């Protein structure tokens, strides 16, 4: 086939080892990221069958889900967490895989360190036993989450059996309004197409808004593709992509860099390439967004109200809404800005990069505000290097002076596998990616939002329109 191709098709076609009659492909995997939660059973499987890791140098491991975000000098207190992290270290040693351990300054959330190290490169196929692997698609890579059996398969064979997904292009055109960030863009997209809207598809994000985003912003957008049901989301690589990668430890150097960039320039979708589905959003319609329910599709502009299930015609959906409101402890019709919060979590693979911290600190600088009484607010940088950079820029002081806790890097309260959890009934303004029941702790109530909106909530103790806060 030599017609116009999409970015996705170019990457896919260049990685097919073999195609079966039914269209299933044996796909070559260039890069594999590993963390402690979804890998122990995969390594155990290798051991039981006497298999080795086919390309240890194509694999990079880091503990992130279980690590404490407070003082680490005495290791991990919780025994099961400690065993899982130690198991990863043992497995990496046995199978010859490089590991950034908990004391390494390069340690961090797996989806933050991949790009940071230049391990993530355009045109590659990247996998990890983690659904937010879609993050790496921001570099024009095909990156998707896999289960543990597939982790074992990649370790043993450096390939995966995959059915070719459908393609979807989401165009976001226009100019983002004041106070509207990449997080609002992706939440608005999920609100539009629904949490299963991208199932079976790979999404290409395009349009002037996406091109205008920084690499960090594109990572935020691609990160939450899975919350729209898509295993992968990607953005065409451009000069910003190359500028971000140049000089990173694992990015190509010298003549190879030139050769790579020349190839990467050929990756964007050809004019006239076709997608199975196209969706268009107008940037002017996107406001700062928050979630009200227990699915990332439950979004509403901060200026809106808690929706009324009685307006939902579908019986199952109505039941889901009622259940969500009961869980969230919210009454239909309540203005979103009247909802009080107990905790603020600024972190996760969605929003814990340097730009996120800068945006958040900027709100503190501009308002000079302090964390509201009774509210606990924490910043968990995405990696040790993000933390160091933020400290060099003095951001840590700004956060600490305003009353935020400044923590060590990891997944933290995004899913509470370490001690950072919500208590039953506690309500959290969170820059993470999932507001599922019990996600941040049993009985915890999550409102997803952007870093500036998280800061606004911290300062007032309520969900707050950051635009109004800055205007006042």
């Amino acid at each position, binding site marked *: 086939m030599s017609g116009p191709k999409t970015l996705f098709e170019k990457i896919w076609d260049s990685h097919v080892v073999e195609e079966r009659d039914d269209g299933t492909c044996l796909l070559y995997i260039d890069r594999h990221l590993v963390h402690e939660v979804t890998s122990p059973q995969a390594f155990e499987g290798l051991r039981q069958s006497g298999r080795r890791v086919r390309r240890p140098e194509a694999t990079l491991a880091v503990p992130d889900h279980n690590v404490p975000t407070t003082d680490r000098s005495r290791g991990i207190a919780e025994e*099961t*967490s400690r065993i899982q992290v130690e198991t990863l270290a043992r497995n990496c040693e046995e199978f010859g895989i490089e590991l950034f351990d908990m004391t390494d300054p390069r340690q961090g959330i797996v989806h933050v360190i991949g790009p940071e190290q230049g391990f993530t490169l355009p045109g590659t196929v990247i996998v990890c036993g983690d659904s937010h692997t879609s993050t790496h698609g921001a570099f024009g890579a095909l990156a998707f989450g896999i289960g543990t*059996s597939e982790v074992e398969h990649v370790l043993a064979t450096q390939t995966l059996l995959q059915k070719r997904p459908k393609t979807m292009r989401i165009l976001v055109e226009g100019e983002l309004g004041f106070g509207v960030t990449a997080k609002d863009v992706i939440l608005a997209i999920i609100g539009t197409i629904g949490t299963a809207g991208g199932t079976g598809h790979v999404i290409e994000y395009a349009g002037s808004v996406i091109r205008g985003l920084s690499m960090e912003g594109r990572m935020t957008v691609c990160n939450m593709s899975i919350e729209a049901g898509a295993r992968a989301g990607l953005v065409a690589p451009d000069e910003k992509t190359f500028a971000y990668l140049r000089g990173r430890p694992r990015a190509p150097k010298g003549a190879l860099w030139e050769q790579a960039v020349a190839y990467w320039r050929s990756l964007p979708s050809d004019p006239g390439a076709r997608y199975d589905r196209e969706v268009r959003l107008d940037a002017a319609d996107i406001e700062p967004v928050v979630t009200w329910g227990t699915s990332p599709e439950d979004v509403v502009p901060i200026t809106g109200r808690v929706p009324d299930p009685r307006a939902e015609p579908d019986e199952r959906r109505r039941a889901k809404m009622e259940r969500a409101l009961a869980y969230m402890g919210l009454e239909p019709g309540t203005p979103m800005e009247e909802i009080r919060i107990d905790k603020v979590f600024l972190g996760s693979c969605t929003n814990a990069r340097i730009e996120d911290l800068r945006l958040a600190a900027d709100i503190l600088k501009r308002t000079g505000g302090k964390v509201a009484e009774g509210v606990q607010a924490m910043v968990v940088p995405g990696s040790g290097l993000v933390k160091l950079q933020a400290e060099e820029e003095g951001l840590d002081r700004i956060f600490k002076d305003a009353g935020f806790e400044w923590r060590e890097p990891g997944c933290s309260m995004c899913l509470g596998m370490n001690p950072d959890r919500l208590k039953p009934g506690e309500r959290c303004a969170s820059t993470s990616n999932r507001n599922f029941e019990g996600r941040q702790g049993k009985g915890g109530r999550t409102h997803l939002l952007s870093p500036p909106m998280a800061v606004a909530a911290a300062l007032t103790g309520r969900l707050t329109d950051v635009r109004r806060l800055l205007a006042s």
Partner: protein
Amino acid sequence: MQPFTTLTGIAAPLPLVNVDTDQIIPAKWLKTIRRTGLGAGLFESLRFREDGSENPDFVLNREPYRRAKILIVGENFGCGSSREHAPWALLDFGIRCIIAPSFADIFHNNCFKNGILPIVLPREQVELLMKEAENAAEPVFTVDLESQLIHRPSGNEPIAFEIEPFRRHCLLNGLDDIGLTLEKLAAIEAFEQRQRLTMPWLWAQGR
């Protein structure tokens, strides 16, 4: 992997949409380094009350559904995290077949790797089966993967389902994917040789 040929058992109706993998198995259960024993945490927040006692309203706490081998659910089952602990927990509880109008991609994939058959049917048919599972005196269904038919307790016409031929083949024979792929080693090596030439930057960066 245990082969899946024919499964006869109780089907439990769970009429919820967008059931996510955090609901199927909460994060605190992910700290295990084994695949077994996760059945105790299956649907934890739905199955158990605050004090740890069983929630008598939840379907898997009611007879005869405690012994369910089949689960009938709403749209987008298994959305969210890639955790394979979700199918492991279902399997450990005894569930080997899930019938839904749609599944989330990663969960759907993970089921096949563990000998669980996820069946996609039009919503009307799922609703019909859900009603039968709710109302039949003995809601025993038989799922026959060979003939791709679901036999119902009502004795009414069995319902046919579709499945990708290769996945069906692997389930019927309990085949190990890795073993199959390693038979293609020559093709993988040839690919790597080609890529070393065409994209040398992916091979040069050492540590």
